């Protein structure tokens, strides 16, 4: 094996300093393979070298937490001997250049992260961010990504709870495709990705190793450019059928207690999976390249170690279990091979044709990977917030504003996406994708789980810290409205190039804002992922930290989001302030994001949570949904269009202008309906918890009417809301 050169190091994305660091650590010049292994393990994607310092701030402890960040997925206790195991991560760059396979392999990867831990995956969810669909390029990306998620997820047999779909021009060229999966396991079925006993056998199971996806992790750690198109070969191709077999085989291996540790092969393939397993158990590992089942002849050790071929798993078992493991794999028509052994020497040793071709002390690749304190510089946020010249807040023609918002791409129905996802498979779905969280039951218990993803990119752009707080508060509010108590979150932090100090400021402040709200609400982070370098030649994306929050409730004690009965009283909980800054209204009118975004009032959020959970517990709520983008107007539109029931509203003079009453995006609010005889009880509960309550009107009639402002037939509104996205996607062509 020839010596690695600085030129190789550069090609692999390493800096001069890092190359010198490797030489010093090894006390020699690494050979070509060793250098390649260093480069993928030290890539941003695998090492989190630019983010680790900031991520340390997340609260990760809590009474329900069984496993926090650091494993393939986090684990929380949900009672009755069961656990929920979940994680969200990104597949942005692959999806930008090969949308179908990029999204499909994202779904496959996150599902593997979950069943690797011994859990049966029961729910997926996919937060998506795209440029405006009027642009045919954005349409073709969205079309491909949704088809990829649908094609893979439906076949592998994991139902989907929807997730965000947000449009903003900053995601043109560089869309965000985040993928989430949740699984359920009994406590004793949990398996960790650790090698902890010398002499244990390392087996590779599932697909053969091919030349696809080499250096995918490095590709994910760079900015998209014109040359990215040439890196399409760094995107892997998924096979959901094979993954389905792999799920069943892996869960059978675990059920029969045949394996000590399991790890899926994701970014950086065999290299990262073997190194991470050995690293977690402070062990070493010998890998024999010749024993790896290959798809092509004459594959080099370099290709085998770096391939990102999908649907592969590494399992560690006792020597006397190898035969039983292979039998189960054979039953599922899958291949398996003994490829190595756990050692006590702490070294990664790679053998090819009987010769050692790489030896690296594992701690250099894991705990000892570089960790940088990045430079930060506050962007000119005042400039971002400044109103465009000549802009005037509209104060009339509300009917048109409401109709325009109902048909806007950020305001209209997402059914075009959701109908492509299997949502009823596995007979757990209590509430399919809708305005609120996805809700599933846990068989064998009376526990329900709610899953909601949220992101506030416009808010984070104008005020990163406040946007981070708002992201957490909004997700929590969605769960409270449905009657659920938050258990934990997983986060996916999508940002631009971290070596730009202004981007890093956005990253750091957003995370600190999230931490602040998480601490105040007592919600731990149990898993997550960072995706940097989300930029195109026209600039960075808006800062987009995504959170997926999981909550718990008892069967029967939950609320639906949209109107349920004619005659129910519509009330607004929480205080509306003059807060149009950064609103969906402004963006709809100007195409720009500006203004001072709404304040975060954690105490008001806590009060609201108590009110909502108490009222839900007493069974007096007929429906509840949180207020967010588009404010009260949008919440009314959504409740009317999803239920088909009208609403007759009268807004009293409160000192807040009618435009603000309708479109302000003040936090800590929810729209609730109750039967007329429960209004007084709800008022008492609000008084006890110091939540402001205002009666707005009643459900019913053939229009959505706000006295003195607008009166729109339900049918007309529904037509706009239901068909806007479908029309642009299906009728405009690609």
């Amino acid at each position, binding site marked *: 094996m020839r010596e690695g050169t600085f030129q190789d190091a550069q090609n692999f994305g390493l800096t001069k300093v890092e190359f010198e660091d490797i030489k010093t650590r090894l006390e020699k010049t690494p050979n070509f393979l060793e250098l390649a292994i260093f480069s993928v393990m030290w890539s941003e994607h695998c090492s989190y070298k630019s983010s680790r310092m900031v991520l340390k701030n997340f609260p990760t402890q809590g009474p329900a937490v069984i496993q926090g960040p650091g494993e393939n997925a986090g684990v929380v206790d949900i009672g009755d001997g069961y656990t929920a195991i979940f994680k969200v991560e990104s597949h942005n760059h692959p999806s930008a250049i090969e949308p179908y396979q990029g999204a499909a392999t994202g779904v496959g990867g996150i599902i593997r992260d979950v069943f690797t831990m011994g859990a049966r995956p029961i729910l997926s969810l996919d937060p998506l961010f795209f440029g405006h669909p009027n642009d045919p390029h954005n349409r073709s990306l969205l079309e491909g990504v949704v*088809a990829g998620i*649908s*094609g893979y997820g*439906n*076949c*592998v*047999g994991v139902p989907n709870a929807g997730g965000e779909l947000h449009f903003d021009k900053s995601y043109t060229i560089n869309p965000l495709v985040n993928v989430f999966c949740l699984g359920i396991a009994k406590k004793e079925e949990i398996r960790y990705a650790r090698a902890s006993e010398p002499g244990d056998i390392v087996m590779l199971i599932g697909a053969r190793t091919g030349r696809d996806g080499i250096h995918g992790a490095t590709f994910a750690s760079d900015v998209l450019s014109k040359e990215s198109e040439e890196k399409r070969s760094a995107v892997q191709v998924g*096979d*959901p*059928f*094979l993954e*389905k*077999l792999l799920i069943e085989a892996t869960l059978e291996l675990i059920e029969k207690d045949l394996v000590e540790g399991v790890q899926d092969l994701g970014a950086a393939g065999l290299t990262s999976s073997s190194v991470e397993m050995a690293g977690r158990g402070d062990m070493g590992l010998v890998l024999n390249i010749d024993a790896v089942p290959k798809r092509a002849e004459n594959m080099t050790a370099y290709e085998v170690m770096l391939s990102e071929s999908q649907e592969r798993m590494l399992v560690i078992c006792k020597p006397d279990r190898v035969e039983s493991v292979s039998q189960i794999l054979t039953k*599922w*028509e899958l291949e398996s091979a003994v490829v190595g052994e756990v050692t006590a020497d702490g070294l990664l040793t790679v053998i090819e044709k009987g010769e050692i071709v790489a030896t690296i002390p594992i701690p250099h690749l894991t705990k000892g990977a570089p960790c940088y304190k990045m430079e930060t510089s506050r962007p000119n946020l005042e400039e971002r917030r400044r109103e465009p010249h000549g802009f005037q807040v509209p104060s009339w023609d509300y009917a048109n504003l409401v109709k325009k918002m109902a048909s806007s791409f950020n305001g209209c129905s997402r059914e075009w996406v*959701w*109908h*492509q*996802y*299997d*949502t*009823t*498979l*596995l*007979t*757990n*779905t*209590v509430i399919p994708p809708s305005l609120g969280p996805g809700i599933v*039951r846990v*068989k064998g218990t009376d526990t329900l789980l709610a899953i909601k993803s949220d992101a506030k990119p416009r808010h984070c752009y104008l005020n990163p810290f406040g946007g981070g707080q708002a992201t957490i508060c909004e997700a929590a509010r969605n769960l409270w409205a449905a009657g659920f108590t938050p258990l934990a979150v997983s986060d996916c932090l999508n940002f631009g190039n971290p070596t730009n100090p202004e981007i890093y400021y956005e990253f750091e402040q957003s995370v600190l804002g999230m931490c602040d709200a998480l601490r105040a609400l007592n919600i731990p982070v149990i898993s997550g992922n960072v995706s940097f370098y989300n930029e195109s030649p026209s600039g960075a994306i808006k800062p987009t930290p995504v959170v997926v929050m999981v909550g718990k409730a008892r*069967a029967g004690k939950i609320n639906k989001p949209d109107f349920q009965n004619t005659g129910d009283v519509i009330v607004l909980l929480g205080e509306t302030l003059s807060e149009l800054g950064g609103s969906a209204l402004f963006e709809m009118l100007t195409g720009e994001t500006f203004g001072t975004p709404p304040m975060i009032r954690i105490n008001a959020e806590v009060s609201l949570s108590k009110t909502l959970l108490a009222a839900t517990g007493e069974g007096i709520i007929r429906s509840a949904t949180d207020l967010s983008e588009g404010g009260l107007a949008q919440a009314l539109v959504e409740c009317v269009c999803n239920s088909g029931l009208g609403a007759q509203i009268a807004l009293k003079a409160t000192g807040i202008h009618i435009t603000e009453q309708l479109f302000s995006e003040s936090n800590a609010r929810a729209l609730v309906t109750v039967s007329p005889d429960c209004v007084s009880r709800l008022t008492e509960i609000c008084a006890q918890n110091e939540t402001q309550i205002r009666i707005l009107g009643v459900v019913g009639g053939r229009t959505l009417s706000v006295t003195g402002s607008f009166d729109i037939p339900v049918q007309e509104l529904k037509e706009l809301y239901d068909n806007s996205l479908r029309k642009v996607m299906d009728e405009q062509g690609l």
Partner: protein
Amino acid sequence: MKVGVVIFPGSNCDMDALWTTGAVKHHESFPIWHQSQDLNGAELIILPGGFSYGDYLRTGAIAKFSPVMEKVIAHANSGGLVLGICNGFQILTESGLLPGALLRNDTLKFESRWVELSVETTRTKFTKNLSKGDVLNIPIAHGDGRYYIDNIGLDSLISHDQIVFRYKGRNPNGSVHAIAGICNREGNVLGMMPHPERAGEDVLGSSDGLKILL
């Protein structure tokens, strides 16, 4: 009743069929592996939904060659009950137990939604406790659910009273005559695209599926 649910590689509704016929409906339900040559005395055989063998060639096209299918066909030919759901319906048409074929949805997209089915005949064991014109609320989830048969075949289906379910209201996939499910002439083999096993409990949105799961 003894209910056998066949598991092909790539089946993904097998657990649901076992759950709903077993835990919910209290039949004696058990899995049958695709390589098995023994139906273990099952009176009703369910071919569940999913993507058998990945459906990479054509939906249901490979599953019909499974060892178990020989026994399933013999069971059907001797009057035994067979229910094919979604991919199972596709396997039944591929293996010749039911006429016609299932093509790509006319929307060219996967269609996952709750639909209303109208009961068109009560002469099968599956629908004998229902009335003609009854409406069932049951979900669909498929990419290849457009039932196709030529005009002669359609006339024959109608004259032999083989149309069991039709979509009420909007036809979600472009099926001929809005057909959602058909039976063989004898009425012991039923194939349908909607998933009755997913509509077995009110908490999931509907328990109408139980009405046809015997």
